[in-house]
């Protein structure tokens, strides 16, 4: 199965690569024409657009009417390379993608210093690689994973979005970076204990995304949350000072030291990046937010200007952009506008909630716009297409936005519906295999909301539909990731993993009992007393800090179930909820944690239905440990969690916990099969 997953991932990546390349380059290349923003990135590479001087200022043949694919070398001096006519440098990780495209341009045979078709190839390769990784990181059966990956990729290749992958804008870095963040988050959050390489990957992809454009600052809180959500080391390391183990916060922080350090690096990097943004952007955004948006949302510009302490003579600027009335914008009356900051804008909206609601409505309409870049173009001048022609090759998600164009509330239903579904999944499970994807899906939905508000409050209503492209992609992603989180939980259970010391006692090769190496499964209950970062890669070797079984057992019994360590508390709760009959349901106690306890139910009350997640599937314990005796064992009765003792049933817990190690092992050896639990595994017990 593992090998087939890898093969599927490679095959899927190849399919995505071919589809993306065909979509971008055949029969003729498509991209997104330039409304002037490309220069601030390409000039940093010493490039100028290869369009004749006069054509650039002729609307019918300008770089806005046709995609300027070819760029030639040029040396820029002074203030000619910067943001919006200034020399203020505009930084973006998109430069990295453009440099890569510049490198492969001659390799691909294009006759230019940079051909944006080479950027399309670079982006297609990256997209294919990320699609493969996403397949491996997702839960569920291959078909579900492929559908999920397909929907995610199609959102990026949709006609609303795909053109940016052959353009000079910074969106490709933001979109591919977001996808990389999602993949890295899945790898981190699907383990009970985050690995350091996983955290570094998440922080690295986060850094790439956050430095792509300032609008991406909205996802910083979510990336930080993902970095510190899981502990990165076992909380009960013997080397820790006792006082640290007894102080909840220090224990929490210590267990997440790597995530916290990386979060700090990301926060500092993001703050530094935002601080390096061109001051001209601040001027433009302030004007757009104040005059083009806020004043235009109502018809009382003089009063609004007075609220900000500005000269009412500026009222004619209502609804204009900063270049719309240079006479007034350049006048002394405008100079105090420089003192208005984002806080003032937010205070105004707080004092005028109706205006904020109106802004949200305008934003929603813009997000639902069926053609956010309609004034641009998809084709090069050699294509023979009329100017400003937009392509229509892939429109799956555009169909959703066509509906949303008529009923914008559809977008709210998609985002908050997926958020509701994923939160329900998170609430019903502690299994990181199930919880992780749900957390990521919830993060995608929240990212959509945050990106929306950052765009709306940052850029105002100027070109808002185009600025909301990233939020639109995140809205589209909500659907496949919610599906993956909801239905990916119904996966075949992996083989039972035993702690090395237990496996040794029962004479089972620890490596053989380990979960597959490329399936990031962490079977938490077997980490009893041992380091919690027990997974496929670690299974064949002793976990640092692991003690002998007797030591573990004693430590386990001695631990306070509600102790300060979250990880330990979770583990203890699992064991405490286990029925007292070890022979009856030992398997579930070891590797199949029951759902969280139901609220107290009266004796005569109807029994609440069992939560559907996570699904219960048979364990392979008996087959692995004692195949000959397993077949002769009678089928155990259905395990009903409602009959389990609650977390407060201390006596029953202690009966179970006071089993001797030998009794424990004996119970393991005599475990029956098949499992009494219902299964989703069509193949039954594994060979």
């Amino acid at each position, binding site marked *: 199965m593992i090998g087939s997953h890898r093969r599927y991932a490679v095959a899927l990546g190849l399919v995505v690569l071919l589809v993306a390349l065909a979509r971008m380059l055949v029969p003729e290349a498509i991209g997104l024409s330039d409304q002037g923003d490309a220069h601030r990135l390409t*000039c940093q590479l010493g490039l100028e657009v290869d369009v004749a001087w006069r054509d650039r200022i002729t609307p019918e043949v300008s770089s806005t009417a046709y995609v300027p694919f070819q760029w030639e070398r040029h040396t820029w*001096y002074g203030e000619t390379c910067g943001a919006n006519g200034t*020399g203020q440098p505009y930084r973006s990780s998109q430069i990295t993608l453009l440099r890569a495209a510049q490198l492969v341009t001659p390799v691909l045979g294009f006759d230019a210093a940079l051909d944006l078709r080479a950027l399309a190839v670079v982006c297609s390769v990256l997209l294919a690689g990320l699609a493969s990784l996403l397949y491996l990181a997702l839960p569920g059966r291959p078909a579900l994973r492929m559908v999920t990956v397909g929907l995610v990729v199609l959102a990026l290749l949709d006609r609303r979005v795909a053109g940016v992958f052959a353009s000079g804008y910074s969106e490709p870095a933001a979109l591919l970076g977001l996808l990389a963040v999602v993949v890295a988050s899945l790898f981190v959050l699907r383990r009970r204990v985050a690995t350091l390489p996983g955290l*570094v990957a998440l922080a690295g992809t986060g850094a790439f995304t956050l*430095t792509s454009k300032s609008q991406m600052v909205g996802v910083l809180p979510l990336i930080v949350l993902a970095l510190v959500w899981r502990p990165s080391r076992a909380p009960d390391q013997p080397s820790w000072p006792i006082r640290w183990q007894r102080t909840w916060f220090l224990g929490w922080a210590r267990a997440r030291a790597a995530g916290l350090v990386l979060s700090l690096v990301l926060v500092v990097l993001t703050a530094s990046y935002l601080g390096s943004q061109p001051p001209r952007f601040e001027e433009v955004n302030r004007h757009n937010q104040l005059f083009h948006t806020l004043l235009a949302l109502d018809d009382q510009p003089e009063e609004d200007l007075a609220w900000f302490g500005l000269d009412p003579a500026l009222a004619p600027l209502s609804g204009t952009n900063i270049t719309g009335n240079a006479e007034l914008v*350049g006048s002394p009356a405008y100079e105090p506008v420089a003192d208005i900051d984002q806080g003032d804008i937010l205070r105004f909206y707080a004092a005028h909630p109706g205006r904020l609601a109106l802004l949200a409505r305008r934003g929603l309409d813009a997000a639902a716009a069926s053609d956010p870049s309609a004034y641009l173009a998809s084709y090069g001048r050699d294509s023979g297409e009329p100017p400003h022609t937009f392509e229509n090759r892939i429109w799956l998600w555009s169909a959703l936005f066509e509906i949303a164009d008529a009923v914008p509330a559809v977008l709210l239903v998609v985002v908050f519906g997926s958020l509701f579904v994923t939160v329900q999944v998170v609430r019903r499970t502690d299994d990181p295999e199930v919880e992780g994807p749900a957390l990521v899906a919830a993060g995608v939905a929240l990212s959509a909301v945050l990106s929306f508000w950052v765009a709306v409050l940052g850029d105002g209503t100027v070109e808002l539909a185009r600025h909301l492209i990233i939020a639109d992609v995140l809205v589209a992603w909500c659907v496949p990731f919610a599906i993956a989180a909801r239905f990916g939980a119904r996966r075949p259970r992996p083989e039972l993993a035993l702690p090395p010391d237990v496996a040794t006692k029962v004479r089972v090769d620890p490596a053989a009992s380990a979960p597959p190496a490329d399936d990031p499964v962490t079977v938490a209950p077997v980490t009893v007393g041992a380091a919690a970062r027990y997974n496929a890669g670690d299974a064949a*070797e002793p976990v640092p800090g692991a003690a002998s079984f007797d030591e573990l057992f004693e430590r386990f019994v001695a631990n306070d179930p509600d102790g300060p360590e979250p990880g330990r508390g979770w583990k203890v709760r699992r064991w405490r909820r286990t029925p007292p009959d070890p022979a009856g349901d030992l398997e579930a106690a070891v590797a199949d944690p029951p759902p969280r306890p139901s609220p107290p139910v009266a004796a005569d009350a109807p029994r609440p239905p069992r939560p559907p997640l996570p699904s219960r599937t048979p364990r392979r314990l008996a087959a692995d440990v004692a195949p000959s005796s397993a077949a002769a064992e009678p089928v155990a009765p259905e395990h009903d969690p409602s009959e389990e003792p609650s977390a407060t049933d201390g006596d029953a817990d202690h009966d179970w916990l006071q089993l001797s190690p030998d009794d424990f092992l004996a119970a393991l050896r005599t475990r029956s099969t098949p499992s009494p639990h219902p299964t989703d595994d069509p193949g039954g017990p594994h060979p």
Partner: protein
Amino acid sequence: MSGDRRAGRGRTVGLVVLGIVLAVLAVAPGLVGGDPEPGVGMEDQGVGTCHDYPTVEEYYSPSDTRPPVPCTEPHLAETIAVRELPADVASRDQRPSLEAMQRLGPSLDCSYADVVAYLGSDDENPHWFVTTQVRFPTEQEWADGERRFRCDAFTAVTTGIDRPIRRGSLRDVMERPESAAVRPCLAGPEIVPCSRPHDSEVVGGEAPPAGPERTRFAERVCPEAVAAFLGDEGEDLVAAVHDTAGGRAFCVATIRSGDPLLEGTHAVQAGGASS
């Protein structure tokens, strides 16, 4: 077992290092970027220097530090004056905003009169197709104390699909045949540079509106102006008042009916008759 443990740790460390290196490689180029060349400052771009702007971005930039080119090579602009900014502007610590500079430009001392003086044109030998543009110090220059602005003259006629380039200096150009590029001629009702095929060459000022003044202008003023303009070389041309496409009328030295079109200038000031 210890070897396996070491291998596992080595693998982890390797992955971490690889991740960090990849992250730095992915992020650093974007943060570092590529900065433009500093170029040549205001102090080295005095009167008579010529400037080429191969791109639209350079043409519309408020400042210009691109190294000057020899005036014999293709260029767009030529500096005709370098002057101090007004005191109220120069006293600011920070350079005015783009919009403030845009508003300030037309009010600065960089006008038609400067062009007239630099080109050597007058009422009888008017110049066309030349306008002025102001270049401010860069923000860095401003921070270093530079408070002068550059007054540039540039040719405002595009040629083909390329930028409106010209060759040669504009200083006293009216006294040379190359002035044909900045002298107004008529090709039918359209005003074109005299360097292009034309049937008439504009002489003197604009004709007054229709009426007695117009009649007097056509019968006396214009023929005298044309005679002075052509000198002894202009016997093939005749004086006339022509209406242009813009609804204006000018005194011109025009060809006789059936004669071939002209190129260049016949102004005696510029050295005599052209073809």
